[in-house]
């Protein structure tokens, strides 16, 4: 029975079908318990969803509006209490001027403040004076010598007095020049005083190596100094607080982000360990300018955070691609991303876009690219996915090449929905096996005209390639009755029809059968003409009682198929040659009724017996 396709099913469940389609589906539902159960489950799901939202209490809207008007009134009252604009402006200008003057004074004071001398260790003595020679931000200039973020080379910054530290901390807090400072300060309290020391040391000293990374993170806000920032990036290894440095760097453009990316690509930093870092990479990957690099980093860092980020990115890409299927950039982005996500997610996304004709090549390319990376997982994902829904036609080639024989039932269901699909039929035929043959017989019985011929031709191909399936297929055919077996045998070439009918005949050992079906099968067998499949028939005759009423007909048919072999068997069983005339008489009527030539019905058998007697 043809079940409802997934797309139509979803439309029906969401009340989107046209009236005609609704009638068709409801007609199907009335006869299909499985689909009725599925529909009941869908409705039950809707009920549950509805019950998860408690109904708004009575007067809820009124309460909301009361609160709204209270807020509006308060705001209006506040506005009315404020001085009118000209008066306020008159106060603002002096205040703004004073603020500017203060900022100017602080800036100038920075220039004149001497940084405390940082004691230089042996290692840092070799470091160029960063406060005098600007250090370029290129990756090579900041290559890690030890690969461990400077471990073992750390210098202890000079201890400064509490007054200096407090003053510097206060000054920096008042400046509030960057959000990094505020965020960093909230998240990482300055218990060890490093931040205060860093502030007291000033920018120039911070350019030296050896400062704790947490201090650099916070001190970065001192003026967004690129050199300090680069040092911070360089030292951002695996310390939790330093992930924020990389995340903040990724949020910026240009060389700083490049340095952070290069740092991450060195495979030092476990991205998965930091949600801010994952988020920063995700945000950057979502942009159009450099999506692949960040997505690759996320894919390399295997874990739930990165996986979820990639999943969200993929959803967005699918969305964008569906919104503008003609955009080459969108297609390419989807293609790239689909090669990075787990193969089951790629498959899910690609199936989502498969309804869009313009995306078909993208889908094929992306999926093939993903399979090239993870073929085994891809096969498993495909099998799991397609066991529940129909595979799109573009993946048929792959299914056939991967010999996914267990997908044959799914393909047959799809073929049932669209019997004219040559690609599907070819896939079923190529995959072959008993399920394919039995399914094709079912489809053949339900079709007519040229489609029926094509199905018979496909079935011939399957049976010819896999003769061992004939017996099992014959058994299945026996269950359908002799009429269909006879019709099918006429549509198949004789070398296939005869063994199929024989298999069917052998399987027709039904105690309630009155012999009518077997007789019909024997007649159909007689129509196939001489063939080399008489041995099985003779064996069948030999296994039956001597007085079986079908025996004369069976001997006659055996004679038609292969007179020599039948004659030898007749003689071997000790039958009297004179009784051949009785056999001929009883069979002739049936042959005549079936418009088969009966005049020389047993001649081959007679000749064989004569030869045997001689």
């Amino acid at each position: 029975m043809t079940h409802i396709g997934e797309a139509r099913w979803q439309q029906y469940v969401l009340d989107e079908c046209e009236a005609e389609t609704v009638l068709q589906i409801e007609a199907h539902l009335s006869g299909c318990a499985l689909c009725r159960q599925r529909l009941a489950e869908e409705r039950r799901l809707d009920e549950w969803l509805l019950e998860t939202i408690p109904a708004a209490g009575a007067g809820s809207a009124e309460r909301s509006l009361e609160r709204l008007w209270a807020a509006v009134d308060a705001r209006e009252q506040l506005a009315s209490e404020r001085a009118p604009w000209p008066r306020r402006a008159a106060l603002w200008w002096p205040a703004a001027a004073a603020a500017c003057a203060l900022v100017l004074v602080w800036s100038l004071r920075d220039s004149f403040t001497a940084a405390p001398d940082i004691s230089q260790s042996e290692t840092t003595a070799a470091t160029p004076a960063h406060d005098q020679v600007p250090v370029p931000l290129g990756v090579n200039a900041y290559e890690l010598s030890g690969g461990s973020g400077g471990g073992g080379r750390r210098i202890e910054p000079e201890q400064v007095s509490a007054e200096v530290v407090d003053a510097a901390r206060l000054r920096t807090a008042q400046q509030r020049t960057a959000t990094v400072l505020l965020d960093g300060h909230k998240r990482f309290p300055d218990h060890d005083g490093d931040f205060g020391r860093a502030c007291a040391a000033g920018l120039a000293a911070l350019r030296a190596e050896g400062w704790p990374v947490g201090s650099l993170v916070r001190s970065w806000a001192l003026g967004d100094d690129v050199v300090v920032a680069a040092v911070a990036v360089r030292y951002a290894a695996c310390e939790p607080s330093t992930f924020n440095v990389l995340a903040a760097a990724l949020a910026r453009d240009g060389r700083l982000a490049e340095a952070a990316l290069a740092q991450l690509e060195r495979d030092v930093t476990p991205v998965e360990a930091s949600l801010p870092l994952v988020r920063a990479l995700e945000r950057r990957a979502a942009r159009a300018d450099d999506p692949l690099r960040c997505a690759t980093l996320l894919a390399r860092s295997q874990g739930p955070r990165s996986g979820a980020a990639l999943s969200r990115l993929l959803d967005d890409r699918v969305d964008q691609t569906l919104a503008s299927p003609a955009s080459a950039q969108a297609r390419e982005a989807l293609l790239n991303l689909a090669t990075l996500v787990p193969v089951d997610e790629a498959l899910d996304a690609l199936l989502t876009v498969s309804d869009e004709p313009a995306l078909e090549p993208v889908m094929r390319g992306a999926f093939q690219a993903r399979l090239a990376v993870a073929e085994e997982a891809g096969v498993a994902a495909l099998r799991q996915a397609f066991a529940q829904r129909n595979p799109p036609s573009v993946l048929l080639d792959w299914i056939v090449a991967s010999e996914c024989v267990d997908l044959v039932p799914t393909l047959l269901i799809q073929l049932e929905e669209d019997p004219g699909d040559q690609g599907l039929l070819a896939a079923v035929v190529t995959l072959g096996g008993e399920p394919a043959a039995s399914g094709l017989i079912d489809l053949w019985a339900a079709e007519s005209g040229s489609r029926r011929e094509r199905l018979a031709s496909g079935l011939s191909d399957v049976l010819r390639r896999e003769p061992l399936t004939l017996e099992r297929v014959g058994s299945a055919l026996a269950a359908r009755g002799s009429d269909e077996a006879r019709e099918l045998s006429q549509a198949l070439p004789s070398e296939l029809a005869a063994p199929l009918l024989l298999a069917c005949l052998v399987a027709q050992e039904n105690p309630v059968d009155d012999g009518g079906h077997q007789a019909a099968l024997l007649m159909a067998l007689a129509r196939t003409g001489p063939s080399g499949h008489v041995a099985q028939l003779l064996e069948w005759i030999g296994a039956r009682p001597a007085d079986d009423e079908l025996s004369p007909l069976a001997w006659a048919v055996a004679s038609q198929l292969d007179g020599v072999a039948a004659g030898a068997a007749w003689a071997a069983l000790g039958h009297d040659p004179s009784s051949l005339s009785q056999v001929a008489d009883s069979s002739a009527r049936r042959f005549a009724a079936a418009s088969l030539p009966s005049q020389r019905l047993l001649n081959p058998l007679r000749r064989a017996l004569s030869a045997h007697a001689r």
Partner: protein
Amino acid sequence: MQNRLPMGMTTIAIETSDLLELCRRGDRVAFGQLIGAHHAAALALAQRLLGNHDDAEDALQDALLKTHNNLASLRHVAGFRSWFLRIVYHQCLDARRRRQTRQGYERAVPPQPLQQPSERASVAETLARVRAVLEELPAKQRAALHLRVFEHMAYDEVAAVLGLTSRSARVYVVKARRHLRQRMGPDLEASP
């Protein structure tokens, strides 16, 4: 489109455009009438997105204030519902973001397999499972599913609320349903 304004024992019909004009002039009764028609839908959407009634009411309150302040910017009267729900949707997203910040970094853990229904789970347990599965859905999918299935909105309108294309809105709804079915499958089969 007409709204019914109760007035004593009678009701009078006021065109939405007139109602809107009255609102812009500061008529609070008219604003109450305009909001009253969509309040339940907005609250349900907020609850769906935020998961609890208190947060939903707070978000809706903020959305109402924004709606009131920006009423003058609404050009197309016919699109009031979409416009209002879009404000609610974005307000809920902001609220979620604030909540996540408040609670520290979100723990991104893979969805845990739901426990199999022992024999027959109680209704409350089943609803708790449904809520848990809904929480797994991205906000956009959850909102799309809600607007389509419970508010019976056309995909165009769902798309207008969520800032999507119509086709994308449909994809979101189908994906959400598929996910729910997949995750709730054992419960569905176990139910009578």
